[in-house]
């Protein structure tokens, strides 16, 4: 939430084709800013430019046109920006981040102010919790499939890992039988998201689930993590792999 007065403007310069864990960097950053409750952010596409490598990238060179410069800008309070910078540096990779003092003359109007989610620490132990969310595949949230929105939200909140499973048959709260029909392009199946992290992190994430899931079931169970490849954010890795196969839940 922005107020008139002193604020900080952050500008991130990166290349259009840059990827982070398989997704394009700008969309990862935009998702991160969105789910962390930043007041607003804009991505601008450049038509030509050069960066640290001193290669000229322009839209006329077809073969390297995915290296065109992109600029992401957002404005928020100093404390908010400070809390985001660590993760942003990791996401930005080889790009450049500029921070400058600015003054907000008039903040944009907000129709329904969103709660901000505090940044959480990454620490995994042998005991953990598994959160399974059962929803319908056709459920939507803000014009995108609910299960996709939930995964993006979990990723932005540093939940260690989540997998979406599509059921071939099932029913839930609304008593309607879902059956996967392979010949139809639109699926109307049941889906299950299975996320693993510490109990605290999952509980902290729950208010967002409350907002996003209108109809569905959330199941918590204690699990012992037997094998867990995990690197902290400082090592430049973000996603951990949840245990596969049958958990001991």
């Amino acid at each position, binding site marked *: 939430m922005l107020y008139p007065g002193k604020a900080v403007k952050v500008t991130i310069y990166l290349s259009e084709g840059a990827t982070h864990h398989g997704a394009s960097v700008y969309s990862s950053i935009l998702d991160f800013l969105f789910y962390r409750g930043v007041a607003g952010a804009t991505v601008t596409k450049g038509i030509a430019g050069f960066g640290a490598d001193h290669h000229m990238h322009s839209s006329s060179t077809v073969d390297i046109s995915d290296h065109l410069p992109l600029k992401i800008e957002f404005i928020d309070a100093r404390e908010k920006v400070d809390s985001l910078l660590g993760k942003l540096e990791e996401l930005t990779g080889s790009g450049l981040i500029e921070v400058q003092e600015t003054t907000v003359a008039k903040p944009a109007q907000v129709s329904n102010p969103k709660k901000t989610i505090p940044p959480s620490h990454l620490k995994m132990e042998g005991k953990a919790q598994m959160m399974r969310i059962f929803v319908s595949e056709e459920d939507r949230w803000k014009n995108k499939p609910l299960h996709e929105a939930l995964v993006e939200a979990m990723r932005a909140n540093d939940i260690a890992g989540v997998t979406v499973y599509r059921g071939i*048959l*099932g*029913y839930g709260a609304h008593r309607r039988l879902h059956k996967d029909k392979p010949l139809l392009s639109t699926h109307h199946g049941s889906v*299950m998201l299975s996320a693993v992290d510490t109990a605290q992190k999952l509980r902290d994430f729950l208010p967002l689930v409350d907002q996003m899931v209108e109809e569905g*079931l*959330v199941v*918590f*169970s204690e699990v012992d993590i037997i094998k867990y490849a995990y690197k902290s954010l400082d090592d430049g890795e973000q996603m951990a792999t949840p245990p596969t196969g049958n958990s001991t*839940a």
Partner: protein
Amino acid sequence: MKEAFSARMLRIHFGEDDRWQGKPLHEAILAKCKDLNIAEAIVFRGIEGYGAGSRIRRSRLFSKDAPIQISIIDTEEQIAKLIPFLDSVVEEGLVASSAVEIIRYSRVSIPPTAR
């Protein structure tokens, strides 16, 4: 509407070509769950797996023996009603049971008896 309570979750593992009275076993189990008004049941098809007998289950062009897992969630009493049926229909397979905490979101309020 939001409700939170303790419950039990079953996960039943078997193969896709397992049958009961001529129809696929997972369809039979799901139909029974619906009869008993079990709150949530969902069938998953695995890509590959193995279980009882250490035979690798995998879906091929002409054989459909992918591993199947059914997750079933409801209160202890409701799950207890389902167990005798599972005993009689699952010939080769595995049932894992765990105590869970659940939160249910619904658009309309459902009286507890109609679950």
